[in-house]
């Protein structure tokens, strides 16, 4: 901006609008973060109130880790998250390879199906899977949750890995093949290490989405299987309590660790 010599220099919207814009942006960031921070803040409250501060305490975290049903929900969320992420990452990476490396009939259809899966309202995905599982006679529970989570995360992995692949220099692979590597060796020793940041970012995204998903899980979990979001939902329905704030804080911190880990890979992608 404003680097043209001679002619009038571009000055944005002007001084006063610029300041107004800065003020507006600051307020919007406050709006985005204040509610989350309030939530975290009151998880450390010493009284049962989530609204009136009475002093610092970690008792709600203690109550949280001694609550068997919360631990059980955490365990289920982890099993589902890890399993679904592993499956979705493999399938998504293979799909990304097919879509970037090949031209074929039906590619537009494949593309459309993948994007449709990312934008389809979650409630539609949830109820259609419920109907399908019941019709197929599958018992609702951990298996149906994992199947559903793989189904809605594959597309995200595909999109992330594809972005990495399309920015890749093909000549290195060609060199490997010229030097006598077979396609599988080329993939494992050249392509995979090069796209690994993309694959990792895709896996982190899938894991975060799985860990946070409420709507689809709500429909396919059946009775008796509660992931963390389902557990949080029933706790909120039961009544506001600092234990929910403590649990929310744990989930938020976990998500942020994953996002910062992921963003590390994204930044590398951008600089590549």
């Amino acid at each position, binding site marked *: *901006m404003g680097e043209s010599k001679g002619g*009038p220099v*571009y000055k*944005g919207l*002007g001084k006063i*609008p610029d300041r107004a*814009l*800065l003020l*507006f942006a600051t307020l*919007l*960031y406050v709006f*985005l*973060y204040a*509610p*989350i921070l*309030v*939530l975290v803040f009151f998880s450390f409250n010493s009284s049962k109130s*989530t*609204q*009136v501060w009475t002093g610092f305490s970690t008792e709600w975290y203690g109550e949280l880790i001694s609550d068997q049903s919360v631990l059980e929900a955490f365990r289920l969320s982890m099993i589902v998250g890890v399993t679904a992420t592993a499956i979705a990452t493999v*399938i998504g990476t*293979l*799909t990304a*390879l*097919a879509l970037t*490396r*090949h031209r074929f009939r039906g590619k537009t259809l*494949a593309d459309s*199906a993948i*994007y449709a*899966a990312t*934008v*389809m*309202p979650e*409630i*539609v995905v949830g*109820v*259609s899977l419920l*109907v*399908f599982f019941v019709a197929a006679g599958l018992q609702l529970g951990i298996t149906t949750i994992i199947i*559903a989570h*793989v*189904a*809605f995360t594959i597309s995200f992995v595909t999109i992330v890995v594809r*972005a990495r692949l399309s920015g890749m220099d093909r000549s290195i692979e060609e060199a490997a*093949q010229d030097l006598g590597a077979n*396609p599988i060796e080329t993939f494992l020793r050249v392509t995979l290490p090069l796209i690994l940041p993309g694959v990792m970012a895709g896996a982190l995204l899938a894991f975060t989405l799985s860990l*946070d998903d409420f709507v689809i899980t709500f429909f396919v979990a059946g009775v008796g299987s509660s992931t963390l*979001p389902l557990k*949080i939902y029933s706790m*909120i329905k039961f009544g*506001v309590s600092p234990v929910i704030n403590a649990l*929310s804080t744990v*989930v*938020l911190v976990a*998500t*942020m660790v*994953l*996002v910062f880990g992921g963003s590390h890979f994204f*930044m590398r992608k951008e600089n590549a």
Partner: protein
Amino acid sequence: MGEEKGRGWSLGLAGLLTPVTVWLGLFFLVPLLFILAYSFGTSGIYGGITLGFNPGNYLRVFDPLYLEIVGRTLVIALLNTFLCLLLGYPLAYFIAFKGGSRKNLLILLVMIPFWTSLLLRAYAWVVILGGNGIANRALQFLGITDGPVNLIFTPQAVIMGMVYSYLPFMILPLYAALEKFDARLKEAAQDLGASRWHTFWRVTFPLSMPGVIAGSILVFIPSAGEFVIPNLLGGARTVLVGNLIQQQFLLARDWAFGSALAMMLAALLVGAIMFYVRKVGTENLEGV
């Protein structure tokens, strides 16, 4: 593979595509066909369903009771989209043009709430708007109200929760569109004598339309199907289509009607995507 790569179908390509075809086919497309078939079926009294060609489930939407819910859903979803655009555009503009070297950090700060659970973000507002919550105490402190007023379980609370939850969905595509923008175009407009506002409305804003449309779709579609936020922040007067679908599947067990409602949401999505492709084309679809 090898030299053949990239031309037509091959064994390798089939191997790469089989897993996704099976999984998305079986667990995404086939289930959608199931609810399409169910939406034309007839629900039995005890939850069973008889398949057939019964358009009655779709026609029930015109029942005044349901029409009100559909109308309310469209109004709330549109209002939410408009408010997100109104708030999100200036921020996306700020990050794209004033962010400088901190652009990446600023956009990451938008992405973090986008990645945190919608459920927790709704819960935060349950706490804030609740009986003795911060919002009520702030109103009393400022002398606007005398005692606690009912803020939660109102349509306003639902819209508040929705704007808060969906704002990042609007900002990210807007930023993606504005970031690609060539600042020299603005300089050119100003060199030719356009005022700053004129430059914005005649050059910057029209060129950011792909982002505006993409963001609006990304906000409008999920908010039209939202049921968690009205469940937690709304009351009897804020039943939306999403709540109605949930009731049909989990309480009323009228799966035929529930399927018809879900198909209408899916149709809304298809309509929105066709609109996007017509206005913007398919090339930018990857940016979404």
